[in-house]
């Protein structure tokens, strides 16, 4: 894991630059195993920065959340850069957005953190459901180690780690300005085992499964708002005229919402899993995203968010593309 002093020192130095507006990183959360996004405007703010296996949030969302209101006359837009602490998966989001021209490369400074996997908050909460006081987690020798009331807990990584981390192909950020620590190379390959197993099921079984999930959706749009890739100026679900998706919550509308969102992320989702993490109803959204990811890979040999030299999938025309869809 990252050397904390090095992280803080790097960010502090960055904040002395005139072209940097602020840096977003992580700080301790208010309870249990939570961490919180943290914003540093001046070097003193950096003292609360941390990095640990609990740092799950994909902070690449923050430049996308910048609000650009009409400015008073003669006032110029603050075009300074935003610094972001990024893990491997988070950096892929940055690459994807830049590819799509959702933001400019020079608008961000990426502080890359080679990542060895983060803790799934649901899994740790299931084991320590009544942990009120904030806990620090460290990774040591393949175990997540932490102290609660003087007692040391060392839990094998695979029991608490996010599923997405198990087959992570890019633990080292694919794009960064500063890299903290040595590169980590992964020999893992995403094999889409679960997707393949699900594809084997009958149409009826598949629908029954998703029907049950979509029926629960309360349309709070946490999945959309946490997603760095969901940065449309006007989301189709918010449009009133025409109204693509009704405000009523029922299976039909909820399914329309979730399926439209999944399709909108085809060839774009970089698999950070934030949508599933924040869903209060526990809808397994990564299963949907992964299915599309697998299809895109199979049909077009394309993986989102890997290189700035590439174009977004839907902006590429290749004569070799499969043409089965042409009647």
């Amino acid at each position, binding site marked *: 894991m990252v050397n904390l002093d090095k992280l803080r020192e790097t960010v502090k130095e960055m904040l002395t630059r005139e072209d940097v507006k602020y840096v977003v990183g992580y700080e301790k959360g208010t309870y249990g195993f939570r961490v919180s996004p943290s914003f540093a405007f001046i070097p003193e703010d950096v003292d609360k920065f941390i990095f640990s296996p609990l740092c799950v949030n994909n902070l690449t969302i923050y430049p996308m959340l910048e609000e650009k209101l009409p400015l008073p006359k003669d006032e110029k837009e603050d075009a300074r850069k935003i610094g972001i602490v990024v893990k491997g998966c988070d950096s892929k989001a940055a690459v994807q957005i830049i590819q799509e021209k959702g933001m400019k490369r020079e608008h961000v400074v990426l502080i890359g953190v080679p990542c060895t996997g983060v803790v799934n908050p649901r899994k740790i909460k299931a084991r320590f459901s009544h942990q009120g006081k904030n806990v620090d987690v460290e990774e040591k020798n393949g175990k997540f180690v932490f102290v609660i009331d003087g007692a040391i807990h060392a839990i094998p990584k695979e029991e608490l780690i996010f599923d997405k981390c198990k087959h992570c192909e890019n633990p080292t950020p694919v794009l960064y300005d500063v890299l903290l620590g040595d590169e980590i190379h992964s020999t893992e390959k995403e094999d889409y085992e679960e997707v393949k197993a699900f594809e084997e099921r009958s149409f009826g079984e598949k629908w029954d499964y998703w029907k049950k999930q979509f029926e*629960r959706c309360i349309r709070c749009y946490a999945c959309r708002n946490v997603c760095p890739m969901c940065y449309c100026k006007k989301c189709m679900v918010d449009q009133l005229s025409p109204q693509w998706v009704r*405000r009523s919550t029922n299976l039909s509308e909820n399914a329309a919402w979730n399926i439209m969102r999944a399709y909108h992320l085809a060839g774009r989702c970089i698999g950070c899993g934030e949508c599933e993490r924040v869903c209060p109803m526990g809808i397994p959204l990564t299963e949907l995203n992964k299915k599309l990811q697998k299809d895109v890979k199979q049909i077009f040999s394309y993986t989102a968010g890997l290189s700035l030299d590439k174009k977004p999938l839907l902006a590429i025309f290749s004569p070799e593309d499969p043409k089965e869809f042409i009647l």
Partner: protein
Amino acid sequence: MTTMEKLVLPKLGIRKLIIGMLAEHRFFGPVDDDGATLFKQIKDPAELDLTFTNSTVPPKALLFKQTETLFKFSLGRSVKIDPVDITNERTIIFGIRPCDAKSLAILDQVFKGDYEDPFYLTRRKNTVLIGLSCTQPGVNCFCTSFKDGPASSENVDVLLTDIGEKYYVEVRSDKGKHLIASMKELLRSAKAEDENNVTYVEEKAIAAITRNMNIEGMVNKLDKMFENSLWKTIAMKCLGCGVCTYLCPTCNCFDIQDETALEKGARVRVWDSCMYPEYTLQASGHNPRPERVNRIRNRVYHKFNYCPKNYGVTACVGCGRCIDNCPVNIDIIDVINKAGEAKV
């Protein structure tokens, strides 16, 4: 208020008690639905999960539905309006937590305020609340900050408290008394020992609540800090999703929409969230709350300043759902305590 009856129900009797109620009521209780606890209508007591901490979605959703059809209509040469039958069935919400029961008392003030809402009020009138005291409060529970407690019976008709071999039963209202009357053979009078046990269980639950929000003087304090930088700090990390509002037991904002398909349609009322930019967007295109800071500040003020002024009660019951579910750890206890400490 009738004099409180103090009874006990041996645990073996709970199944019979519920079966007795199922016969004449729509019966809702906490059910484990694939990891989420939801209040659902049940047909068999075995479906209930009484080990829950609190439900994911508050039981307000049973009375103030996320989607409510107000009336149906058909278009064409002449418009025809079909009123919707308002659910008038006798209903029981079993296992509601004291905090959520209090939230309904707060919602009552809204729905019988300037306009009486027949949908909510009819359901409310026909619903008996059978509360279940918390014996293991959640990490972010803080009902005690509002001088309420995990075994507070104030806002329920009947309160059950698990005291080991039996439930301690407090009958708090005429509705509750009426309901229990036909089930007297299952109940016994409480003994002094039971009373001691219930006090012990309650004290233990109170001791398990570790979080505290200091709301003393908050109304006045907030009056003086509308422009404080605190709101900007919180808004920086807010994603603007609707988790906190949709899962809040006291949030009650709604939108009204006409949903049509060719020649017929319905006017529906759906939950809305003040965290969405669309919420205050005017037809002209102007938005009086254009930034997240405006919206999140409004949410805090609505609960801790406007509601206390308008209804004499803070519109927060300390259930902790918004804290548990915020994707970016915006923690209302922390927010209010920081507001308390802020220099003005």
